[in-house]
C-alpha cells in the first residue's frame, strides 16, 4: 500500500453556535490517512463524525488547526477556492443519495462535468457512460431517480462522485438507507474503487458490518479519535 499521506489533519477544531450555546464537535483533532486507503469512521450520535467528514470534503472549514488533503492546504482556501477544489478533487456520497429529482441518471452523473468548460459534449458523454458502466447502470441512464431502487440511486450517486476522477471520495452513511444486499453491493464497489483505482475513501458509518469492508476503522467520541477495538465491542453491547 502507498505510504504517501493523502489526508493530514493537525489539531483541527470546529465549533459553531446553536441559539445561545456554543457547540464544539471537534477539538484539536489529529489524523493521517494514506493514499488509496479505505477508512471507516464510527462513533455515537453527536460525536462529530459527519463534521469531520465535511471538513475533509471541503464543505466546512475548521475553526482552528490545519487540514491538508492531496497536498493542498484547505484551511487557507476561501469559499470559492474550496468550491473549485471540491469540483476537481472530491466526490461526495450521501446517505440519502441526494440526486436531483428532475434530472435523469445520465444528467445527474453529467452535472460535475458541466463545470469544466474545456469538455465538449462528446467528451462528457464518454465519461458519463464510462462511470455508469463502472457502477453497472449503463442501461438505466434515462431513468429518473423516482424510477430507480434505493441501491440503484446510490450507485448513480457514486457514478456522479467518480465521473471527474477525483482522488478523494467521502461517503456519509452510504448504506444507511439500503437493505443488506444492496448495501453489500455498494461496499464492494467502494472497496474496488480504493483497491483497483487507488481512490482514497473516508466513510462514516453506524454499521459494524459496513465498517468491516474498510481497511481501517477509527472511532470518534466527544471529538477525539481512537483505534480502540474495546470501544468497538462496547458499542455492540
Amino acid at each position, binding site marked *: 500500500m502507498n505510504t504517501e499521506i493523502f489526508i493530514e489533519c493537525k489539531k483541527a477544531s470546529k465549533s459553531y453556535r446553536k441559539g445561545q450555546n456554543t457547540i464544539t464537535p471537534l477539538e484539536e483533532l489529529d489524523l493521517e490517512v494514506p493514499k488509496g486507503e479505505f477508512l471507516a469512521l464510527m462513533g455515537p450520535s453527536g460525536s462529530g463524525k459527519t463534521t469531520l467528514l465535511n471538513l475533509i470534503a471541503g464543505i466546512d472549514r475548521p475553526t482552528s488547526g490545519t487540514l491538508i488533503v492531496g497536498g493542498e492546504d484547505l484551511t487557507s482556501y476561501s469559499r470559492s477556492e474550496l*468550491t473549485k477544489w471540491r*469540483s476537481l478533487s472530491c466526490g461526495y456520497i450521501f446517505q*440519502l443519495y441526494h440526486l436531483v429529482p428532475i434530472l435523469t441518471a445520465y444528467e445527474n452523473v453529467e452535472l460535475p462535468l458541466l463545470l469544466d468548460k474545456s469538455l465538449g459534449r462528446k467528451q462528457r458523454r464518454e465519461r458519463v457512460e464510462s462511470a455508469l458502466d463502472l457502477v453497472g447502470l449503463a442501461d438505466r441512464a434515462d431513468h429518473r431517480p423516482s424510477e430507480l431502487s434505493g441501491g440503484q440511486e446510490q450507485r448513480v450517486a457514486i457514478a456522479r462522485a467518480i465521473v471527474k476522477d477525483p482522488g478523494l471520495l467521502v461517503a456519509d452513511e452510504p448504506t444507511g438507507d439500503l437493505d443488506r444486499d444492496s448495501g453489500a453491493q455498494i461496499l464492494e464497489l467502494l472497496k474496488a474503487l480504493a483497491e483497483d483505482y487507488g481512490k482514497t475513501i473516508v466513510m462514516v458509518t453506524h454499521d459494524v458490518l459496513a465498517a468491516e469492508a474498510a481497511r481501517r476503522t477509527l472511532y470518534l467520541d466527544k471529538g477525539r479519535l481512537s483505534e480502540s477495538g474495546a470501544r468497538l465491542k462496547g458499542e455492540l453491547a
Partner: protein
Amino acid sequence: MIANLWSLLGLAFKQLSRHRIRSLLTVAGVSIGMFLYAAVETMQRSLNLMTESSDEDNTLVVYRKHRFCPMTSRLPERYVEDIRRIEGVVEVLPVQITVNNCGASLDIITFRGVPTDSLQSYNPNLEVKSGSYAAWQTRSDAALIGSQFAKRRGLEPGDQFEAVGVRVWVAGIIDSPEAQDNNVAYVGLPFLQQASNVGLGVVTQFNVRVQRPADLEPVAKRIDALFASDQDPTYTRPEKAFFAQTAKEMIELVGFTRWLGLGAVFAVLGLLANALLLAARFRAKESAIYQTIGFSQVSVGMIMVLEGALLGFAGGVVGCLSAALFFHWNRFTLGNEGLTLALSPSFEVVAYGLVVALVLGLLASVWPAWVSARKPIVALLRSA
C-alpha cells in the same frame, strides 16, 4: 466555479419543463399581465402618433371658434378662397363631417364630404386599392371607403350601406398614409350637405396644407385674424394639436388605462417573484447538492435567474403576440367628436413588451436566487 452559461440555461430549462404544471400556470399568469400591458401600450402608441407633433407636420385644421363637436362647427364654404390666397398655403380642402356619435365610442361611423375634384390634389398619396376613383367623381351618392373602415364593416365596391341617415354606394376602397383617411367614408360635399340637412354652402372645417412646417404657426394666425370679426370666427391649429384638444374623452380614457398597465406590470412581477420563491424553497437541498458537486453560489443563483428570464420571456411572447394578433384581427377604432383613432398593433410594442417581460423576469428572480444560493451547504443539507 461559474459553469458554462449554456449548461446553466439547460439546467434552468429542465427545471421549468419538468415542473410542467407550475411553469404553465406561471407563464399563463405572466401572459395575461403582458397582454394587458401590450394592449395599453398599443393604445398609448396609437394616440401618440396622432397627437405628438413631429418635424414633418404640415397640416392645419380650421374650425369654428369655441366649438369642437362637428355637429356644431359650421363655417361658410366661401372661406376656402380667402384661405387659399394666404402666403404659404399649398392646398385647402373644405370638409363637412357627419358622425353617428359625438361622444367617445368604439363604433364610429364618419362621413367626410369633400369637393370630388379636390381630394386627390390635396392628398396625392391617396391610393385607390379597389373600385374606381372616376366612379366616385361621377356618381352623386358614391363613397370612397377607408381600408380600416371597409374591413370592419365588410364592405366592397358595389355595396350599398346606410348610416346616420345617409345612404351611399361604395365606389372604391382607399388606403392613405394619413391615419384618419382609413377610418372614414369620403362622399361628395354637396351630397352630404343635403343628406345631413346642414345645407349647401356650409362646412364643418377646412384642412389646410402648408408649404413647410415652419409655416404652420404664421398661417394659422393669419387665418384666424382674417375671420376674427366675422359672424363665424375661426380657430386654427396644427392637426395634431387639434386632435389633442378635441378628443378629450378618448384621451382621458387612454390615460386612465396607463394605471392598469402599471398594475399589470406589478402583478407580473409579484407572480414571477412568488413562483420562483416557492421553487427556491423546495430546492434548498438541490442547491446544496449543486454546491457540493462544485457549482459556485453564483452558478446556483444563475440557474434561478435564468429560470426567471425564461418564464418572463415565455409569458411575454405569448402575451404580447396575443395582444398584437388581437388588435390585428379586431381593428378597433375609437372615435370622438368626429376624430378617429385606429388601434393598430406595431412591432415596436411587441419588441418593447418582450424586453419588459425579460427584465421583469430577471428582477423577480433576484431575491429567490439569493435565497436559493445563500445558505451554507451544511445548514442546507441539515434541512433535508
